[in-house]
């Protein structure tokens, strides 16, 4: 990497009492990159995001954001960040528009500039018709959009999004993806956490999988699939009472789940043919390209959304 990284962490640790939430991770995020954190509940994603956001001090290790030290230049760094926390913390005493203008003022923007910026952002997240409403009656998706708009108010160099689309309906998610995609095109660096594999594949150039406070894998979505998975996956379901596990040996890597069996293989159709040749009769068969979900399952032994 020739350019100076926007985020650089070495041996980053966060402890709460004697509990270690982040256990010595190394990171580098380049300008313009879209970087993702995946990991099961409690993996340490939010704890890491909060350290990057300079609201939580690392217990040990080295952290540089935008080339600066959070311990010394926290306020200056935060001035160039946009943060969308995991849980919305919009201001319940203010209207939708005031939530944006008031937030802009915390960044030292003039009143006129704050107002203009709020109007742009209301359009950007399609909340113009609710501008005068208070926050409380908004739907979950609208609140999320407002939180993301608020994170853009200072035209940040680096945007941190902690589970930006959790709890949104598919339409709202696609709207947000599209907005985030536009930000990326404008050169804004994005760092996000997600439990959605499709989101990670859509939005991230590069990602890390965290588990138990450590990074267990790193790479582009494609390369992770290439490294940890076969190109295709066969999902087999068997009638109740049939245990086919032994009969599948040798066809590919077998991963028995409570409700189905996964077969990892280079050629799905050939594998299905072999299953039938052995006289096994699954009640349903699905051949698909392998996804990040499979990588995740392999690495953490857990499905993402449980």
């Amino acid at each position, binding site marked *: 990497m020739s350019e100076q990284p926007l985020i650089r962490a070495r041996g980053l640790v966060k402890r*709460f009492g004697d509990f270690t939430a982040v256990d010595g991770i190394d990171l580098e995020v380049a300008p313009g990159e879209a970087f993702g954190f995946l990991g099961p509940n409690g993996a340490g994603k939010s704890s890491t995001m909060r350290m990057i*956001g300079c*609201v*939580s*001090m690392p217990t040990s290790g080295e952290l540089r954001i935008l080339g600066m030290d959070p311990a010394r230049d*926290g*306020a*200056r760094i*935060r*001035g160039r*960040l946009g*943060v969308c*926390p995991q*849980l919305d*913390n*919009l*201001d*319940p*005493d*203010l209207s939708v528009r*005031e939530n944006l203008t*008031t*937030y802009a*003022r*915390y*960044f*030292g923007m003039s009143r006129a500039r704050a107002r203009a910026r709020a109007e742009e952002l209301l359009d950007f997240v399609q909340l113009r018709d609710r501008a005068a409403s*208070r926050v409380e009656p908004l739907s979950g998706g609208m609140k999320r959009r407002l939180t993301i708009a608020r994170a853009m108010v*200072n035209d940040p160099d680096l945007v941190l999004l902690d589970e930006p689309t959790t709890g949104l309906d598919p339409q709202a998610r696609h709207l947000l993806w599209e907005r985030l995609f536009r930000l990326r095109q404008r050169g804004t660096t994005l760092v996000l956490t997600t439990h959605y594999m499709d989101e990670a594949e859509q939005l991230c150039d590069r990602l890390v999988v965290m588990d138990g406070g450590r990074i267990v894998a790193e790479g582009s979505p494609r390369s992770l699939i290439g490294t940890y998975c076969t190109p295709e996956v066969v999902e087999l379901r068997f009638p109740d009472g049939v245990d086919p596990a032994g009969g599948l040996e040798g066809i590919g890597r077998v991963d028995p789940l409570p409700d189905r069996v996964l077969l990892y293989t280079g050629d799905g159709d050939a594998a299905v043919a072999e299953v039938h040749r052995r006289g096994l009769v699954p009640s349903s068969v699905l051949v698909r390209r392998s996804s990040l979900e499979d990588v995740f399952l392999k690495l953490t032994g857990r499905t993402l959304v449980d």
Partner: protein
Amino acid sequence: MVSAVLAARVSPARVGAVVGRNVGALRSGPAYWLVLASGFFEPVLYLLSIGVGVGALVGELRLADGRVVEYAVFVAPAMLAVSAMSGALSETTFNFFFKMKYAKTFEAILATPVRPLEVALGELAWAMTRSAVYTGAFLVVMVAMGLTRVGWALAVFPAALLVGLAFGAVGMAVSTLMRGWQDFDLVTTGQFALFLFSGTFSPVGDYPPVLRVVVEATPLFHSVELVRGLAAGLPGWGLLGHAGYLLAMTAAGLWVAARRLERALCR
């Protein structure tokens, strides 16, 4: 030295933005205005019922300089100090605690360049504004009732601001230590005890010696003495001591509040 450190770190614009947030919240509905109004009337009602009503039974009272005055003249400055105290406290206890613990207002603010001390200063400035509105209105009542002169009222006003500042800062510090709403019962009780026993309704000189020592250590006593001295037109060097006490209280309250905010929200 301390002020140099403060000047380097505190941005007036960011403190102003925190105050601005509260101004914006004022538009949020009539509930807030009702609370605001009731806070003003409370001390006025005490002044009328006790100062004037009980005053008719008590008759007259001898002040420190030997002057003899009506009982209401004695009680009014104390009620002014109480009004400055409760104005600041209602903002920095209940409202502050709610913003810190439930509305996550400060959590959101601290993700921006605004620092914990700037949040504390902004909240304090806002509490002072409320306190100033109460004391300003109360002084008008006092002048109208002939309980002080206009000239001395102008001198009392900044002293009342200082009272609001000191109680606001300490109220904020206390709020950061609260575990839940039930702890506020203690605050309310403490506030009421101060209200009764700070030389408010009778001269501290008449208290039993032990109680007197205790009372002279508490903040409302110093507030009442400061305000009463000026309202009665009796400035003296002693008043500086009371002002110093209130200034120290302000600094300590601010320091604790900022530190505790950081501890609670920037883990």
